[in-house]
């Protein structure tokens, strides 16, 4: 009996994991993300060269056994730079999403829970932010803060706040009216306690899905900002900046843009696979 209950207790997360495993795309996505993480963590072991080592003798070399992705205009190994770039991209992706999830989630929860004027004020501000294309917003913020890794994260993070605020507000609205929230009030819980202990845990599923997909968007936005020179500054290897750098040589040396582009594409694809898989796995209606 007791072992049975132990199994049952795990069922929440295990059940989701079980369903996630059934989706081949999600598994592929997870494996790719795992590879990316390994690349990022062990970049100094995996990369044959450092990201900034220049060797003008070997500039513009095509992919070969020594430089498997070739070299750029300064003779830097593109493969090494992509491996190190994974660090930057993952950092930017996850931290930016963290920023927007916490701020947006908190604002959305407050708006949804209290309703009325607070809701109206907060959501109209979010609407204003949403009315500006997010890339434009990120450009504006990045331009005013100046370039740099940290500012890039803030810019990308802020530009995505409204998405989270809306999603969290919607879920909170649907949960707020349920009887267990009233029951929690009836036992004397404070508002904050109700929001954090009763409401948020009940709307985690859409937040998790949005966050997973959001990491992809954040990486893409960050790459875009770096591409136009507002993000990471050379010589730090950012995939978007590498694309931008290779742009002038795209006719003669297409591999300079091909590989960073592929890296971005595969990462985004993997994250989207996982996000879609999670959405299906977390949807209780699809429970068989």
């Amino acid at each position: 009996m007791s072992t049975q209950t132990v199994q049952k207790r795990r069922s929440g997360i295990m059940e989701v994991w079980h369903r996630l495993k059934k989706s081949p795309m999600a598994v592929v996505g997870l494996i790719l993300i795992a590879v990316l993480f390994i690349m990022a963590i062990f970049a100094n072991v995996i990369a044959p060269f450092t990201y900034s080592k220049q060797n003008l003798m070997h500039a513009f070399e095509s992919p070969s056994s020594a430089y498997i992705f070739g070299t750029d205009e300064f003779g830097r190994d593109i493969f090494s730079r992509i491996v190190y770039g994974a660090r930057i991209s993952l950092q930017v992706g996850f931290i930016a999403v963290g920023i927007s999830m916490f701020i947006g989630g908190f604002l959305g929860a407050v708006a949804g829970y209290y309703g009325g004027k607070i809701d109206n004020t907060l959501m109209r501000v979010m609407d204003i932010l949403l009315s500006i294309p997010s890339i434009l917003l990120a450009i504006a913020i990045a331009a005013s803060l100046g370039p740099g890794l940290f500012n890039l994260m803030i810019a990308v993070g802020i530009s995505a706040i409204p998405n989270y605020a809306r999603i969290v507000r919607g879920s909170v609205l649907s949960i707020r009216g349920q009887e267990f929230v009233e029951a929690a009030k009836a036992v004397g819980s404070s508002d904050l306690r109700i929001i954090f202990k009763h409401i948020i845990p009940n709307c985690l599923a859409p937040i998790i899905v949005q966050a997973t997909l959001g990491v992809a968007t954040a990486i893409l936005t960050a790459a875009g900002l770096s591409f136009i020179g507002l993000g990471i500054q050379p010589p730090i290897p950012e995939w978007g900046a590498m694309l931008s750098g290779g742009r002038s040589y795209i006719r003669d040396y297409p591999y300079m843009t091909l590989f960073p582009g592929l890296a971005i594409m595969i990462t985004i694809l993997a994250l989207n696979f996982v996000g879609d898989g999670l959405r299906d796995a977390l949807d209780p209606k699809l429970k068989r």
Partner: protein
Amino acid sequence: MNERELLLDIQDLTIHYETEAGRVRAVEHLYLELGYGETLGFVGETGAGKTTTALGIMRLIPSPPGAYKGGKIIFRGEDLLAKSEAEMRSIRGGRIAMIFQDPMTSLNPVMTVDRQIAEMISLHRDVNETEALEQAVRMLEVVGIRPERAKDYPHQFSGGMKQRVVIAIALACDPALLIADEPTTALDVTIQAQVLELMKDLKRQYNTSMIMITHDLGIVAEICDRVAIMYAGRVVEYADTKTLFERHVHPYTEGLFNSIPDLEEDRDELKTIMGLMPDPTNLPTGCSFHPRCPYAVESCSRETPAFVEIEPGHRVACPVRAAAEKNGKERAS
């Protein structure tokens, strides 16, 4: 009215909801008394204001649109309407606990049941988390749930079991007053009987006073000491259960009793109260019941009936019937 000590004394309580459709007079000049250790049955149709009264006692009326328009809720000698929100938080759960109608939705689906009980305990008692969880498991045993199920989630329980968990939460801090809002409506009949039996036992064991909101007069007969009949936001008749079942006076109460089918009698149609509940945004003038009342006289549409005591502990808001009753008694003696 008599010497019994009152735990709860509601005087002239009025609660309105301001909606776009107009002012909903959910509770109008409501009087209610509850002594220590007593069970009060609170009977009325859907929309009569029973739940609003219950939430009103807890100060959980959603505001806006709800608002207290007057009256007092004296609980243990203190007016709850004068309390601050922080004071109310310690009263809710600690002194007054509530059982909600639908056990399916009144438990948090993503929290194990022992944690939900422990939350109540740690909010009101000075205990650490382990102790709270231990007490929670003990409470589960009190309501007849095996301790090894403590770590289960609500969806792993049946409806009756969930209602037991809800009862365990409500009683965890030994409240002086338990408000049960139709606790058995969502359950099927056999489970209803079990849950009622359990509540009856626990009430005795914990010496808790209870307000039992229901529209089932059978439940009232079974467990209540006193009954308040509510119609359109007012208590129209208040008496101890025996008196009410034997000598109800108000025409609405009479209608309720007449509508209970009699097994002995061969009838094709139930005897019902004619008409429908009035629109709460547009209550009839005078006595709200007069358009449906077979005894109505001309003055009923003008004068709001006073809530008068016709015999010790028996109050009625119907001057016409009260007078008739008095005359009948005088003639009999």
